[in-house]
């Protein structure tokens, strides 16, 4: 990384120049620097609406960058150790979809863990590729899905030598990493692309003592949620490409679904955040790791809670662990994660990232302060004092092995009918159902509905998880193939 060059922020600097020019706008957006929408200006501020402008010569165009955006993309690639970087404004969802759509076509196979984000499965609906799922191992005590075992991936590659790509979560929502280097090598040895979903892994590129990141492992592409640990605005993201990538083709894929009116607020936030990461990321994430470690120690001092860390590493399904992820298992206080999540929000004014049946997660970032960690630990101690129950057995598996009967695309577009959800056992689902967050489908289009899956969905719903996916809002019905 060229540190001197990284001090530049070309898009941001172009916007600053543009602001000083006081150009008279006879182009979109129609609010014209906010003058046509006084209420919006009061709410967002003049500074903000003043740079909400359209693509134009001095500001380049995200659909076909030739000047400042091109330079910002080059700097981003350099900062992340990639050959090329695309700045993305349609979320990491669009980055994941671009990886999948540019690697597999209709009828071609892609190997992926079943606990992928819905954006990956939705990409299969778009292109008609066939998923080969790897069962992630599950820690039944903690109730979390783990990484892919190398042996399982090897078996899948052997059974499907015609597969075109392998998709890897690095890390998972829970901070779990698979053996990335070995899986990337395995993919390349068998002529497959290695695609890495790093929606929760921006910091791996900058912080010390963190798990290996996609580009350093030699992956072909990686999707990076800059707006999570990277500090940019929500919805902004980055797609990284490694050696040998067909940039022209990938660019065409990106432009299939990307807006032609990309927001300069998002692009500038990526530019500024990339500069910040390049210059200060190492120290920032060292601090974040330190805070997470401290929080873990303090929380583990309170009986009944378990905030797990490096001790989980087992060389296989937990090849590495991202210590910035603060996940707390709450079973020991007799409460589900979602119950603790609700108590923290309603009674203690603390908003957590998510709660599932057994865990609650705090997202620790460069914006956190030690005194807020004290509040979290204090609130968890108080919840134990006031609300704890005898430890009960919870529905254990977060992951239910799917039986795939149709590709996601076939199931999505097939003739279907809507049935009361309990009457769908044995039928093929046309919809996905997930808790959001984390947005990992419990069932996906094309999979057989089983009692076990329905039990899981109903338990999650009953415990107050926010359920998404089906057209029927209260999940009372599910669409299945006729």
């Amino acid at each position, binding site marked *: 990384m060229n540190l001197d060059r990284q001090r530049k922020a070309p898009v941001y600097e172009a916007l600053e120049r543009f602001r000083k020019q006081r150009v008279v706008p006879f182009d979109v957006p129609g609010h014209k620097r906010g003058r046509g929408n006084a209420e919006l200006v009061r709410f967002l501020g003049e500074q903000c609406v003043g740079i909400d402008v359209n693509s134009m010569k001095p500001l380049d165009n995200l659909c076909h960058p030739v000047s400042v955006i091109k330079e910002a993309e080059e700097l981003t690639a350099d900062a992340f150790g990639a050959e090329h970087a695309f700045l993305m404004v349609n979320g990491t969802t669009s980055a994941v979809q671009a990886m999948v759509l540019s690697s597999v076509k209709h009828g071609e196979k892609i190997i992926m863990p079943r606990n992928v984000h819905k954006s990956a499965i939705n990409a299969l609906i778009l292109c008609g590729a066939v998923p080969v799922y790897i069962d992630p191992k599950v820690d039944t005590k903690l109730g979390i899905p783990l990484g892919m075992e190398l042996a399982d991936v090897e078996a899948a590659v052997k059974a499907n030598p015609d597969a075109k790509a392998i998709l890897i979560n690095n890390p998972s929502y829970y901070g779990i990493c698979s053996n990335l280097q070995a899986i990337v090598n395995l993919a390349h040895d068998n002529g497959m692309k290695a695609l890495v979903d790093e929606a929760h892994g921006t910091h791996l590129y900058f912080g010390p003592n963190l798990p290996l990141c996609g580009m350093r492992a030699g992956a072909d592409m990686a999707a990076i949620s800059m707006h999570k640990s990277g500090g940019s605005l929500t919805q902004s993201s980055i797609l990284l490409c490694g050696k040998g990538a067909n940039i022209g083709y990938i660019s065409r894929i990106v432009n299939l679904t990307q807006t032609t009116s990309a927001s300069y607020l998002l692009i500038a936030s990526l530019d500024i955040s990339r500069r910040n990461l390049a210059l200060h990321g190492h120290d920032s994430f060292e601090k974040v790791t330190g805070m997470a470690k401290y929080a873990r120690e303090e929380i583990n001092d309170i009986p009944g809670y378990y905030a797990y860390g490096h001790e989980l590493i087992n060389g296989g399904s937990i090849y590495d662990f991202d210590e910035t992820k603060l996940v707390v298992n709450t079973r020991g206080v007799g409460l589900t994660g979602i119950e603790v999540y609700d108590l923290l929000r309603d*009674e203690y004014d603390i908003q957590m990232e998510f709660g599932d049946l057994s865990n609650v997660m705090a997202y620790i970032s460069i914006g956190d302060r030690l005194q807020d960690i004290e*509040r979290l*630990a*204090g*609130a968890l101690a108080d919840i134990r004092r006031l609300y704890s129950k005898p430890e009960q057995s919870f529905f254990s598996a977060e992951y239910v092995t799917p039986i795939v009967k149709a590709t996601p695309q076939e199931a999505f577009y097939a003739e279907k009918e809507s049935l009361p959800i309990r009457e769908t056992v044995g039928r093929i689902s046309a919809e996905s159902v997930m808790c959001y967050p984390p947005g990992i489908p419990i069932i996906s289009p094309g999979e057989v509905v089983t009692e076990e899956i329905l039990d899981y969905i109903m338990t999650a719903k009953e415990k107050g998880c926010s359920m998404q996916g089906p057209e029927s809002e209260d999940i009372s019905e599910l669409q299945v193939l006729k």
Partner: protein
Amino acid sequence: MAEMDYWFSDMHTQNVKISIRLAKQLFSGSSEFQRIDVFDSPEFGKFLTSDGNIIFSEKDEFTYDEMIVHVPMAVHPKVQRVLVLGGGDGGVARELSHYEEIKVIDVVEPDNMFVEVCKQYFPDNACGLDDDRVHIYYQDGLKYLRKCEDMYDLIINDVTEPLGHEAGLFTKEFYGSCYKALHDDGIMVYQHGSPFYDEDEESCRAMHRKAYRVFPINRVYQAHIPTCPAGYWLFGFASKKYHPLKDFNPDRWDERNIKTWYYTTHLHKGAFMLPKYVEDLLQEEEDMSR
């Protein structure tokens, strides 16, 4: 010597400020928690600000130091162990040191620099920290409390700023932790803010709501403090057993002959008689919590 047109302003709301003419600035520095400034002024003497908000002045600090200490001390029959949160200036410890039966005064203050600045510029307050019974812990208050169970007779929360770096001391977990740290007949008193301006009202309500859910006895008392918003300040009295008026023992306190400038045993009773609008807003929070 002519006075300069040199003023400090503390914004009480977006639309109201109090301005104090300055003689000079004595100190400015930043710690990991806050920016601290010390000024000298013709009217209020020396005063200290944290992030631009007045924390105390020589002219009026006696009011809250006396009110937050003597009110519970005139109620609880035998206080031996006291915890002071955020009392780094020493004013509260100074008032506590008048009581011989107190054995331990633990002061928990996260910011070392705050204590050092007070020692240098406000020796009349900071002398309270020199008492042998005082132990200072440079720590976060919530962290300190997490390890405390059935340890204190009296907890004094001297932190005034619910939005500052010690916001944790205005939360539900804080009141819960205090309850746990107190003996079965323990009392906790705390800065309750000013109820007058709309933007302060919600935090005032929230404090009462949180304390009300945790402690069986909750009363609020008042004082007149010029540098506070609207010059009007409330204190909370949360207790497991003793009622601030029914268990109040004026004769015993008067016999102590403690020299005060604000507190008297007459004023003690009057301080719990609140204006109607304050009574109403406290009552509303109690009704909602039932």
